[in-house]
């Protein structure tokens, strides 16, 4: 076998290895944190990364509390409590100016990676799909759709569960024609992401808007 053949084969093997490395990322980290942080928070000077799992914060009891607020139960297979989520705390000098946090959410045609950037009160300042598999992916990724989430916080989600006619959230329309499930999965993923942020970093400041009887 010539050297070129071997190189070709090894290239394939290397490609496969890099793919396996790719699959290794589970907790939805940013693909390129250095660039993503500066793009979302241009005033930032540094950032700190923390990996937090539900297990490390309260385990099953916390899972039940999150499920109650989410109005849905976790998927046993894919939403395990030992999954570590990446939280990027954004700094300007020594001052914290925001956070970036991602979450893997099951979609209709594959896993979605929903990335939120929030201010210190938990309001969304940026939202984008790091990954989405859908025939209508472009419509979901369009800023005309994603920008509608700017300024929304967990309060909107809790209030929407009580009266879905008047909230800002109710104004956001499904951008797709045939994939309403992906729109609903998106809303679920964003809500879960904000609940976890509220639990892990904001001392549950939004709990006062939560009405357990109204969640469905």
């Amino acid at each position, binding site marked *: 076998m010539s050297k070129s053949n071997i190189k070709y084969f090894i290239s394939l093997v290397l490609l*496969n*290895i890099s793919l396996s490395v790719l699959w290794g990322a589970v907790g939805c980290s940013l693909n390129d944190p250095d660039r993503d942080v500066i793009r979302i928070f241009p005033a930032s000077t540094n950032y700190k990364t923390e990996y937090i799992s539900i297990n490390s914060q309260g385990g099953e009891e916390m899972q039940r509390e999150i499920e109650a607020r989410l109005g849905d139960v976790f998927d046993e297979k894919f939403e395990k409590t030992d999954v570590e989520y990446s939280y990027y705390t954004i700094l300007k000098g020594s001052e914290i100016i925001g956070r970036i946090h991602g979450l893997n959410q099951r979609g209709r045609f594959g896993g979605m990676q929903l990335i939120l950037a929030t201010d210190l009160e938990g309001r969304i300042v940026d939202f984008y799909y790091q*990954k989405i598999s859908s025939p209508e992916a472009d419509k979901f990724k369009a800023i005309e759709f994603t920008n509608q989430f700017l300024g929304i916080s967990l309060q909107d989600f809790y209030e929407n569960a009580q009266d879905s006619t008047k909230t800002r959230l109710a104004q956001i329309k499904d951008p797709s024609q045939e994939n309403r499930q992906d729109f609903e999965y998106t809303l679920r993923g964003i809500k879960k992401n904000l609940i976890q942020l509220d639990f892990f970093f904001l001392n549950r400041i939004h709990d006062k808007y939560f009405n357990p009887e109204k969640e469905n």
Partner: protein
Amino acid sequence: MRLLKIAYKNIARKKIRSLLTIGGVAMAVAVLVSLLGFNAGYKMALNNDVDKMGYQVLVTAKGCPYEAATLMLKGGGGLRYMDADVYDRIVTDDRIDKITPQLATVKTIEGGGFTMYMGIEDSYTELKPWATFKEGKWFTSPEALEVIIGYEAAELEQRTIGDQIFIPDTREILTVVGIFERTGTQDDGVIFLPLKTAQKIFDLPDQLTGIGIKLKDLGQLSAFEEDLYDEGSIQVISLAQVKGTILNLISSAQILVTSVAIIAIFVAIVGVINTILMSVFERTQEIGVMKAIGAGNRQIFQLIWYETIIICTMGGLLGSLFALAGGSGVEYFVKRFLPFAPEGNLIYISPQLILFSLLGAIALGLFSGIYPALRASLMKPIEAIRSGE
């Protein structure tokens, strides 16, 4: 035994100096053990990886070599394809035990990264009997719009049986009918579909990227390769050769690390000699008195030699412990720098290796102790006692 006790007490008298010397020996032994452990572990992991591919020979389309980066940039566009009739010509060869055709392609994932799709036939599992189902079953027909997903791919895509999967660019939606158990190979990240379906939806009719072959008798490999040489459009890759080539690829890294280990051992030898020699010079009068009250040259030689051996043995034990404890850290480090790292543990430290390193440390002590012990044993008692005046 008494001399051993005295030797130990002498070492304990200068604790910091002795500890530093033991540390030096320990570092040298740790590097050596890690290196030898890596040699053994890497070969085992590579053998395991290649064996898990299931075939001994891979037939691919002839063409220029492609760098992995090119393949990635082109999203699989750089892959070479061959006509499927090559398979029809080869499959009748009596020397073949098992054979399977494959069509691989790569698609970009949103936000960066790639997914590998592999078109396969039933014969694929004959070559890979460990590819068992975690859930679900095989495709319902050779042209079904169905996929079987590798374990890791299913986790990432959050797919289960009955779910749909969308393949970018093709606009095709396929149904998940099976999920493979984890195999610890690259297959865990692959999405498999029937070969004919793959040829159709990727618009590669009657095309293949590879044919995996297992021969009845591995001894026939050379003749088999020679016969296929006449097929103009293909090339034959023996996995045994691939193993050898990958081992050659890492040999330069091994030479570098071996050089570091040899230097570390040399520094350790010098350090031990220096420490013991200093100890001998500091105790010149003491040695003189010992000789004056009846100690022979041989006993003095033994005493100093024992001190060296104790230091080196302790260093050897400590170094072996360092290597055992730090194996995963070393593995993480080497995996980042190697051109190719197989799955599994790359460092295998066996009991025999620990024993070998301990014997090596003792031998180092025996060697390093000769000169200081000779200096001490050949001292004249009167001159030694007077040297302190």
